[in-house]
């Protein structure tokens, strides 16, 4: 019953969304007596009575003058207007503005990563599968075990050191004017490509190996299926068998795994962004952490969770489209 399944998934997602919002509201308040405490300015030369007035004004300014419940309701209504909060940075920019500024840059990295991982991974994986047992296949196996043991950020540092600092092939740190002077010209695009090279290479090596491994297994599994043997027996050329039948079926899990990794698109590159000083969501979050900018931190958390929820929902629905068994059984478990 497709419709029932879709409805169930959507309702379920909404339910979890509310839990996430509530958690998001309460986490910074755990164990803290006076949450406005960290916003009070120093007393300076003011008398005590004057200072208590200042404290009242501060509490009012940040919304701590009402009860916890009311604060929560206010938070909900604020969210319903799409207002994720106001950052404590100078000038009080809105959290949503900051996220909107940084998000595209993170996507540049993660989408490039995904693109390269999938394409190269597919190519390498299929070639390993066709040459099963031979050099290409064994090389892939070994690379796989080595790569999973090497953290991506370590690779990033090594690349930064050699390709960036020592040999100067790419900028070791993001050029400071990359974001500001971006104007969709070829020059600007080339600059972004040049700066994104090292981060993307560091991230995608692991991804390439992963997808290659998965493709290899998938292709091997499918080629052992009965219908392939039938096709061969019918006298189809190897090439037709390979491409028309095997690959097409082997793509299925790849596609769905792509969907699963969508939720990691935004939050997954924090460390890499920090290493290369890339102007994305990761560095925004780290900055917020360093400056104790709670509204910004919680706003980003909420955004990431919502995005993950949405991505999961869409993936689930797509998956159920592709594999009808799933909607009958009740989920990708």
């Amino acid at each position, binding site marked *: 019953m497709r419709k029932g399944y879709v409805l169930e998934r959507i309702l*379920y997602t909404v339910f*979890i969304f509310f*839990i*996430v919002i509530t*958690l998001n509201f309460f*986490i*910074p308040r*755990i*164990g803290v007596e006076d949450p406005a405490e960290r916003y009070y300015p120093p007393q300076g030369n003011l008398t005590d009575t004057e200072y208590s007035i200042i404290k009242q004004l501060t509490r009012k300014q940040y919304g701590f003058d009402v009860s916890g419940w009311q604060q929560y309701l206010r938070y909900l209504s604020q969210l319903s207007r799409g207002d994720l909060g106001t950052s404590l940075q100078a000038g009080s920019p809105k959290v949503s503005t900051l996220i909107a500024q940084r998000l595209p840059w993170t996507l540049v990295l993660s989408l490039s990563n995904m693109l390269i991982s999938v394409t190269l991974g597919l190519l390498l994986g299929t070639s390993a599968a066709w040459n099963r047992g031979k050099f290409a296949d064994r090389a892939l*196996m070994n690379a*796989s*075990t*080595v790569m*999973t*043991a*090497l*953290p991506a*950020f*370590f690779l990033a*540092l*090594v690349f*930064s*050191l*050699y390709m*960036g*600092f*020592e040999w100067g092939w790419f900028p*070791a740190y993001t050029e400071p004017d990359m974001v500001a002077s971006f104007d969709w010209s070829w020059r600007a695009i080339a600059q972004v490509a040049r700066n994104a090279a090292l981060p993307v290479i560091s991230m995608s090596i692991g991804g390439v190996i*992963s*997808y290659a491994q*998965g493709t290899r*297994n*998938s292709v091997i*599994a499918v080629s052992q299926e009965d219908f392939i043997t039938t096709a061969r027996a019918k006298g189809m050329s190897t090439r037709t068998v390979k491409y028309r039948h095997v690959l097409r079926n082997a793509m299925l*899990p790849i596609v*769905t*795994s792509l969907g*699963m*990794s969508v939720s*990691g698109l935004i*939050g*997954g590159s*924090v*460390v890499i962004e*920090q290493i290369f000083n890339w102007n994305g969501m990761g560095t925004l*979050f*780290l900055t917020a*952490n360093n400056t*104790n900018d709670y509204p910004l*931190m*919680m706003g980003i*958390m909420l955004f990431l*969770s919502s995005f*993950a*929820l949405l991505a*999961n929902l869409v993936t689930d629905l797509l998956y159920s489209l592709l*594999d009808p068994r799933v909607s009958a*059984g009740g989920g*990708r*478990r």
Partner: protein
Amino acid sequence: MRTTRRKNNLLAMIWHHPQGQVGLILAGLLVFAAVAAPWITPFDPYDVTQRAEKGLAPGWPHLLGTSISTGQDIFSMLIYGARVSLLVGIVTGLAIAFLGAFMGILAGYGGRFWDTLIMRLVDVMLVIPTLPLTIVLTNLFGKSYGMIIFIFTIFGWVGLARVIRSQVLVLKSSNYIKAAQLAGASRRYIMFRHILPGVSNLLIMSTALTSAGIMVAEAGLSFLGLGDPTAISWGKMLAEAQSGGALLFGHWWWIIAPGIGIFLSVFAFMRIGLALEEVFNPRMKRSGMLLRLFKSINGSYIQEVFDAMDDRPETDEAGKEAAP
């Protein structure tokens, strides 16, 4: 009885497996280094009076040179770093094994109520972005490895529980369980005396592979500065190298050394885990369930998908179909 005999031969079985042997030797060396650190290091990196000139290149007596920011001997720091990695990795691996087994068995065998509850919990946990949450929690409650272990355990049991649950579902329909039920054994009795031993292989394998995955994740968190600031760990060494100017000065040794440390420890435990997997179930494909577990710790869900197309009877998805 069956299981104890198997455990007695476990080490021997790993040893005889060629790759398992490599893993055991490496792991043994690392454990030795971690435990014997105060005695085998040439300098004490915690002792401020043993600092040398800052930013020395590798040579004698500083085999890997000294750090630019503090003048500590990098080789000694490398050995001390093993302590944190191994401790966090192994303890968390064990904790996840316990929690995951408990939740998985409860979900698989404890009845529909528990199953639904636990699976819903799993869904919520999967959505929350772990890294940002870790950052927020360490911000609020202080930075320590205890906090890191706690957070890893809270998020790490999810993958294992799902796998265990699937295995339990398979076991549920096996004959000897049905016989026990007919004989009138209580639910709890069956869970402990029959189900648990049935998944014990899985647990042992998972501890090894999970530990490996945790070590990588811990390195990442230490790199971001979320671990105990007074302890020496490989991730923190990498962070110090970066902020202390190793890149600017070109001191590659300060960067490569901790990286190799991380690599060796993860590699060792992965080898042990994979060897165990092949030992317990020689028919299984190389990159089976457990590599998926391992990757799910690392946050990449790719491998999880492949079981969907594995219609073989020994895997969990088929078992799910048979569930009532």
